[in-house]
């Protein structure tokens, strides 16, 4: 384990030595919150790979990246791992069938985000056909081939954003990458799946990190963890040693704080580099990948397996058996209820994702997606149900904002429909992490207001642009 100051100098001597005795970390970023973790509910539960007995699987056509189109028709037989949706766009990521079966229908269904989206419904059969990609060695093929493989395997960021990984791995030529961060911070309360992935698949995570380092041409790789997961460190370090990467890889502990898992925070905490406003990690020579994504990258090369399975945490006090499950993508949550856990009568909220940034769902009949990191069943006591009251201007939201914005003044400006002033205070920089709304004593729904505000601001910008274009046309 090394600290920020030491990373800067990144000495090989240091890496090969073993000063692994620091447990509390000082690596951190400004702002953010110390949240009650509630990880104990599903902590220590091994990831349980299951497949529900239900026959129907509902696979969303687009799961991150640009809009896809189905490439199968109703009635087609599909094999496990067969591509069923793609598009020509660079930003697009193909989607594969997670089971062997027959395409029953293609229709709009409820998906994560509480919206309707086009889904391919597949009825599972007993053929158990698989159609994986050929096994490939990431270190001998060309970089272009490797990036293409990651795209063809349908890999997206599994931390929650579902950003296409192959796009991340294709930074502009003038932005060299020197450090890859494996993001194992898992700062959302309740979730434990990344921690379990690191414990159970340390080798695959390390392999995935080595592959990404190779593709990006980075000379160092860092596994960044929060200091509530100190017990995972020896496992990772052993795996690094075993794989022979001790010269180039290391672990970094960061002070447990939300939102550590965001790229901006983790780069600040682990490397003390600051992404410029409106920039991306490659602007500071970094690339951040979730540990689950790295695991999937390793499998895509070593087994030729596309991203068709997803491990996630089921938790919350209205869930009878909190645990970590691994299911085929497209499994309906409602099919898992009763078979693997049950939901109490007093359930008040079903959340797809973590408690800070996840979506409240109107029904449990929605599929597990590539970016589903958790499904939470909250009772009334856990949920945030209080009504809004007037803002008293205490300024807690300013202290809590990890982006150093001024949420209270953004909200006040938006109340007057003044998006320009709100932008000056940082409306468009807001990552919707929810820190401000979490600390607000008046329970103002700040994130909700900022989402709406951003929509209005973008619309205004588009309108202004269209108007300017029309004026120019008229002038000619």
């Amino acid at each position, binding site marked *: 384990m090394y600290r920020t100051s030491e990373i800067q100098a990144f000495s090989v001597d240091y890496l090969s030595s073993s000063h692994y005795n620091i447990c509390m970390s000082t690596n951190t970023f400004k702002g953010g919150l110390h949240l009650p973790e509630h990880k104990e509910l599903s902590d220590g539960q091994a990831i349980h790979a299951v497949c529900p007995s239900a026959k129907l699987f509902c696979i969303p056509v687009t799961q991150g990246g640009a809009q896809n189109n189905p490439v199968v028709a109703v009635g087609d037989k599909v094999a496990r791992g067969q591509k069923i949706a793609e598009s020509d766009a660079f930003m697009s990521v193909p989607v594969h069938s997670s089971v062997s079966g027959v395409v029953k229908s293609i229709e709009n269904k409820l998906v994560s985000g509480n919206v309707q989206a086009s889904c391919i419904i597949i009825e599972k059969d007993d053929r158990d056909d698989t159609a994986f990609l050929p096994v490939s060695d990431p270190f001998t093929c060309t970089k272009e081939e490797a990036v293409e493989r990651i795209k063809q395997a349908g890999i997206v960021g599994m931390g929650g954003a579902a950003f296409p990984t192959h796009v991340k791995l294709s930074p502009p030529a003038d932005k060299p990458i020197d450090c890859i961060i494996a993001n194992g911070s898992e700062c959302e309360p309740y979730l434990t799946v990344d921690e379990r992935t690191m414990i159970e698949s340390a080798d695959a995570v390390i392999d995935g990190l080595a592959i990404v380092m190779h593709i990006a041409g980075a000379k160092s790789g860092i596994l960044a963890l929060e200091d509530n997961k100190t017990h995972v460190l020896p496992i990772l370090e052993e795996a690094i040693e075993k794989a022979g990467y001790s010269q180039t890889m290391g672990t970094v502990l960061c002070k447990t704080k939300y939102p550590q898992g965001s790229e901006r925070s983790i780069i600040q905490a682990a490397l003390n580099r600051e992404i410029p406003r409106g920039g991306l990690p490659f602007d500071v020579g970094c690339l951040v990948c979730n540990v689950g994504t790295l695991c999937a990258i390793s499998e895509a090369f070593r087994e030729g397996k596309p991203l068709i399975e997803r491990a996630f945490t089921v938790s919350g006090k209205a869930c009878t058996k909190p645990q970590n499950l691994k299911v085929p993508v497209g499994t309906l949550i409602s099919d898992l209820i009763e078979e693997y856990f*049950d939901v109490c009568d007093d359930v008040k909220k079903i959340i797809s994702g973590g408690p800070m940034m996840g979506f409240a769902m109107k029904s449990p009949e929605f599929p597990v997606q590539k970016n589903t990191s958790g499904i939470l069943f909250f009772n009334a006591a856990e949920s945030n149900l209080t009504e809004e009251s007037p803002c008293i201007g205490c300024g807690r939201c300013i202290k809590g904002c990890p982006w150093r914005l001024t949420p209270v003044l953004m909200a006040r400006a938006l109340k007057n429909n003044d998006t320009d002033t709100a932008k000056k205070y940082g409306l468009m920089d807001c990552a919707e992490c929810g820190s401000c709304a979490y600390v607000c004593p008046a329970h103002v729904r700040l994130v909700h207001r900022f989402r709406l505000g951003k929509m209005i601001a973008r619309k205004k910008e588009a309108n202004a642009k269209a108007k300017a274009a029309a004026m120019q046309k008229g002038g000619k």
Partner: protein
Amino acid sequence: MASQIDLKQLNLVASPHIKARATTQHIMIMVCISLLPLCVNGVILFGIPALITLAVSVVSCVVFEWVAQKLLKKPVAIQNGSAVVTGLLLALVVSPVTPVWMIILGAFFAIVIGKEFFGGIGSNVFNPALIGRGFMVLSFAAAMGTWVTPVDAISTATVLATLKTGDTSFVTSDYFQLFIGNQAGTIGETSAMLILIAAVFLLITKIIDWRAPLAMTATVAILTFFSGADVLAHLLSGGLLFGAVFMTTDYTTAPVTAWGRVIFGFGCGLITFLIRQFGGLPEGVMFSILIMNAFTPFLNKIIGRKAGEPRKTLFKKSPGGV
């Protein structure tokens, strides 16, 4: 156990789905707790009149708020405790011998005109307790300028008024008397010691921010030092510490940004010094804070560096700045 989840009971409110426990009510209760020792001390020093003043002020503030919200057809929100805080603050910044009917009028002005007419909690421009007191001072100058000594309640002048006449004969033990609160003044402002204890309590519980109070007291101390007056006497007497701790930290009427708060405190200190030194009144804390309240919307424009923005320097103008 529910094999069939009742979908109607599901709540769909947007993220975040968890919430810190602190509420507006919780904050107001903490402020009341911090004011309690000052109230007790006021009653010990000035006896039953102080107790009556406190009780009348709190009760009338709560009643006026309830009536105003009813008449303005707004949801009644007296349970958030802000009227209680205003009532306590108003009582603590008036002389213990103020007639009851004046206090009721002051409470009316504070709550109805100073707060509810501006839109209620969170929307008022001026500190309600101070605007109530301001009204009383301007309307009933003589009564509001009547002070009594602690315990024996003999009519006397405040230390600042004495200073104004040029009398500056202080010995060390006098400062100690001032520090523990053995001086004429309003019910709550006399004991610097108790005010500092309340300040520490509020700082530890993160109810208030240190910037504005520190900036205000430091400004007064430095300017008083350079003017050649008695710095300690100026700090320990009058409403400086009380105003700095409880009034410049008022959420609604003071800026929310870090540098906004510093400049707010500095402005309060500067105006206080100018009034004390050159004005016709012995004390200037109230007017200084009320004047700076008017600057708050402008001071809120001073925002810090956003994440990823280049560091600002004093001499280079950068976007998002003033």
